[in-house]
């Protein structure tokens, strides 16, 4: 059959379409996080003082450190794409692995940060929390939900990059076909952008 021969001879690929699909998905993420930023802005507007007081509980140093980690992981992700474009497979794999390690580092910091809060009795529904002012409860609620959802994205991103690393090792992702890696990269950079906004809004308002 001519059509079959045609499919075998020419594997249909639409890299631009693939990337556009990824971007459309990222816009839905904008709405997901956007809704929470709306909530944050109105509650903060209503409870200016309480938000300032509550934000003092957050560890700015860990926040800064995590920002640097995430920005660097975005760099290594971008570098891994250039490496594969230059047909440097091992370098690309190296950068992808560094990205995953940095993602894990981010989550380890997050773990210590959250456990410290929970040890202080600051978690949704706790007695300490219920004793706080309404605005402070709202702040911590938003803090847990927004950084939690962001953390979930970090985990998903790390798993996704792990899959890409496997595909790169197997040669499925190569110099001529790397759109999967690019899309995983787009997702990873979105996670970075969300953190770029979360960081000043939660850690730097004291």
């Amino acid at each position, binding site marked *: 059959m001519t059509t079959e021969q045609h499919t075998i001879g020419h594997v249909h690929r*639409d890299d631009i379409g693939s990337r556009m699909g990824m971007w459309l998905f990222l816009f839905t993420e904008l709405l997901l996080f956007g809704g929470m*930023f709306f909530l944050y*802005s109105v509650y903060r507007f209503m409870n200016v003082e309480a938000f300032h007081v509550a934000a003092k509980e957050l560890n700015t140093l860990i926040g800064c450190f995590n920002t640097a980690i995430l*920005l660097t992981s975005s*760099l290594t992700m*971008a570098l891994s794409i*250039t490496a594969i474009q230059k047909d440097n497979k091992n370098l690309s794999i190296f950068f992808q692995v560094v990205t995953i390690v940095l993602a894990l580092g981010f989550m380890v910091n997050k773990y210590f940060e959250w456990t410290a809060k929970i040890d202080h009795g600051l978690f949704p529904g706790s007695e300490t929390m219920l004793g706080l002012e309404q605005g402070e409860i709202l702040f911590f609620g938003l803090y847990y939900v927004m950084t939690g959802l962001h953390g979930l994205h970090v985990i998903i991103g790390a798993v996704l990059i792990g899959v890409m690393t496997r595909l790169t090792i197997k040669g499925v992702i190569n110099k001529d076909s790397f759109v999967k890696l690019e899309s995983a990269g787009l997702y990873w950079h979105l996670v970075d952008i969300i953190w770029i906004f979360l960081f000043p809004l939660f850690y730097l308002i004291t």
Partner: protein
Amino acid sequence: MYKDETHQHMHGYGIYILVWLGLLILTGTTVAVAGIDFGALTIATALLIAAVKSYLVLTIFMHLRIEQKVFRIFLVVAIFFFVISIVLLFADYSFLTNL
């Protein structure tokens, strides 16, 4: 045909490292500036710096600068509607509280 388009789509290592340095400097700035009280402008400054950082990530790391124009149009439309939502939200909110 696709091959040519993908090959066009490329940045060197150097520009990424420059952008990364820029992002770190901006993070340092936002932390340093956070200690100063500009009143109502404090949030505006923090958001402005975050917007500049996002712009760098979007254009360079996410390749929008070398991507086809339609991608940039998509993003502008998405952000436009996002901004409309937040403006209407605050308009609504400020009228409600005046009741």
